[in-house]
């Protein structure tokens, strides 16, 4: 991606968010000077607003939404620009530290992409790319996973829709936009953590420490998003940070104001429409606040707004057709065969230095009797950790015992809770600068955090500089795109084969929330021999191809090699046509 492409993409992001961001800026108190927090919140509100408005319209047509957006956005800009200049003055305390952290956190996440010409993204991007591209191909939200599988799409598509919109307007591939959005989420989350910590600790050093630890030291739930491509998780958790900020602001209101009090409900709806797991994380947080904190106003506001948000999201989803999730029995939601995670692996995945400073932060809060405001952080951390322990250890071991040692699955992907735990843990790091004994050595602590950040970022960068994919895979995928009929089936797998070739494969990348245990997909997974695939393809009148890690001379009997490069061969079942 060139510099010009980057500028074009940034302009398109701004174009997508502008009407909603401007609406937020006009809804705030006019007498308050504009500071960086306002600009940041306007930007994140812009994302939430875009998802809420665009999703129901794109369930009909993406082109229709583009027309509506242009019709609203251009006049809004013309009308708002002079008004913005007249009404807002820049505050003297602009929080430049937060602005610098945002920019640096964004650049650190962008750096691993730069040496690569065409980075398709980490593990989960295999299906996020497909979902976002499906919106463009079908000019509407996809109802099914066709052409890859005949099952319904349950996955919320808020983030994919934003990427598809920017991709269409910037003329850049959707995977480039998705990865850039992932980097942007890292920067925005780091800056929002700064302001949330400032609100909780009322101390700039604490805010800086929290933002530094999230932006540059935490791995899973932060830097590691780039490796596994968890865009919906990163985007929805950014919205969850906004939800917490808005709930706290609503509780600080001096006069009764129904509109401002219910504003977090809009963010809650955007969370549900962006990532189902983060919606669960939101309700888990609200439940933890109710049970484990004396913050009655926060608990009441959080509960009311999250429920109102859920209702609004369900109404938006219902407007586009039947509600997703009716096929939950065929999903892997309650039978998820994830590798078991020990406590040691949890600490390593977090990045050991981050685990040490964040746990020390939680201990500092606990040692000081959990000050009233900070009970939010301890409840948040405790709620997520207790839920992880229940799902990973109690549920899994109960399954093992009940099934007499035959099964060892878990439910609700507990590893995601460890990713989500990075947010409250980062916020807790701020406590170390407020409470003794570390508070006396703030300068040394800042130096330690910066060193840990530099080391962690460097190791993160190096860990992503591998050989650049499987040799020969790009040539094989390009050959498949050019030569394999669109309705053929390809047996075997290469990273991003489905997205890049748009051909059906024997093992399509489908997330756990989808009906991937549908009988047809189970049948496909059970077929292992060339003869079985031959019969399957013949019964459906399809051509069947194999993609293998083998030279052209060593392909198994029954296959004819048509293309071979770099140790990857593409073969047709039977004789060459």
């Amino acid at each position: 991606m060139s510099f010009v492409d980057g500028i074009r993409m940034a302009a398109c992001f701004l174009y997508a968010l502008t009407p909603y961001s401007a609406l937020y800026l006009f809804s705030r108190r006019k007498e308050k000077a504009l500071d960086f927090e306002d600009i940041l919140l306007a930007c994140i509100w812009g994302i939430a607003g875009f998802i809420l408005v665009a999703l129901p319209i794109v369930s009909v047509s993406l082109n229709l939404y583009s027309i509506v957006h242009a019709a609203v956005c251009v006049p809004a800009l013309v009308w708002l620009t002079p008004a913005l200049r007249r009404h807002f003055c820049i505050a003297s305390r602009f929080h430049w530290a937060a602005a610098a952290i945002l920019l640096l956190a964004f650049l650190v996440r962008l750096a691993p992409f730069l040496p690569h010409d065409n980075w398709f993204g980490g593990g989960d991007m295999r299906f996020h790319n497909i979902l976002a591209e499906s919106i463009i191909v079908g000019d509407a939200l996809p109802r099914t996973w066709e052409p890859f599988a005949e099952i319904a799409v349950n996955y919320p598509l808020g983030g994919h829709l934003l990427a598809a919109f920017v991709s269409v307007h910037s003329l850049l591939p959707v995977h480039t936009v998705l990865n850039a959005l992932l980097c942007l989420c890292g920067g925005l989350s780091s800056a929002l953590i700064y302001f949330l910590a400032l609100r909780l600790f009322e101390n700039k050093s604490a805010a800086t420490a929290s933002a530094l630890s999230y932006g540059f030291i935490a791995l899973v739930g932060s830097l590691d998003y780039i490796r596994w491509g968890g865009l919906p998780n990163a985007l929805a958790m950014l919205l969850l940070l906004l939800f917490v900020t808005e709930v706290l602001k609503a509780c600080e209101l001096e006069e009764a104001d129904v509109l401002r009090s219910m504003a977090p409900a809009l963010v809650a709806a955007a969370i549900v429409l962006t990532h189902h797991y983060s919606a669960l994380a939101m309700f888990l947080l609200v439940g933890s606040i109710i049970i484990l904190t004396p913050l009655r106003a926060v608990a009441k506001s959080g509960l009311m707004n999250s429920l109102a948000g859920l209702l609004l999201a369900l109404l938006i989803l219902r407007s586009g057709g039947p509600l997703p999730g009716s096929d939950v029995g065929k999903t892997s939601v309650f039978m998820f065969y994830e590798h078991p995670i020990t406590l040691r692996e949890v600490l390593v995945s977090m990045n050991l230095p981050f685990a040490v400073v964040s746990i020390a932060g939680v201990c500092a809060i606990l040692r000081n009797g959990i000050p009233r405001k900070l009970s939010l952080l301890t409840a948040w951390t405790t709620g997520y950790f207790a839920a992880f322990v229940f799902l990973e250890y109690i549920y899994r071991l109960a399954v093992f015992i009940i099934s007499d040692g035959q099964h060892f699955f878990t439910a609700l992907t507990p590893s995601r809770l460890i990713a989500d735990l990075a947010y409250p843990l980062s916020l807790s790091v701020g406590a170390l600068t407020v409470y003794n004994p570390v508070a006396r050595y703030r300068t040394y602590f800042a130096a330690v955090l910066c060193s840990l950040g530099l080391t962690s970022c460097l190791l993160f960068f190096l860990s992503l500089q591998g050989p650049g994919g499987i040799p020969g895979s790009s040539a094989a995928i390009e050959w498949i795109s050019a030569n394999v009929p669109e309705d053929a089936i390809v047996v075997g797998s290469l990273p991003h084969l489905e997205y890049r070739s748009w051909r059906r494969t024997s093992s399509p990348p489908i997330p756990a929330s989808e009906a991937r245990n549908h009988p047809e997909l189970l049948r496909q997974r059970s077929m292992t021999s060339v003869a079985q695939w031959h019969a399957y393809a013949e019964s459906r009148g399809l051509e069947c191809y194999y993609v293998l890690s083998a030279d052209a001379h060593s392909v198994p009997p029954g296959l004819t090699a048509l293309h071979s490069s770099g140790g990857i061969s593409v073969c047709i079942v039977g004789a060459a046509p």
Partner: protein
Amino acid sequence: MNEKVYTSLTRIVLAVALAIAVAGSLAFVLLEKAIQNMPFSDF
């Protein structure tokens, strides 16, 4: 309710969860041979 009650409750939940996590992790290590041939998908 008294604020100290919430503090104690948080500490108890954290301590119990930590104890179960340590015990569960040990159980995973002990079960390593029994589960090594089980299929674990990545996503």
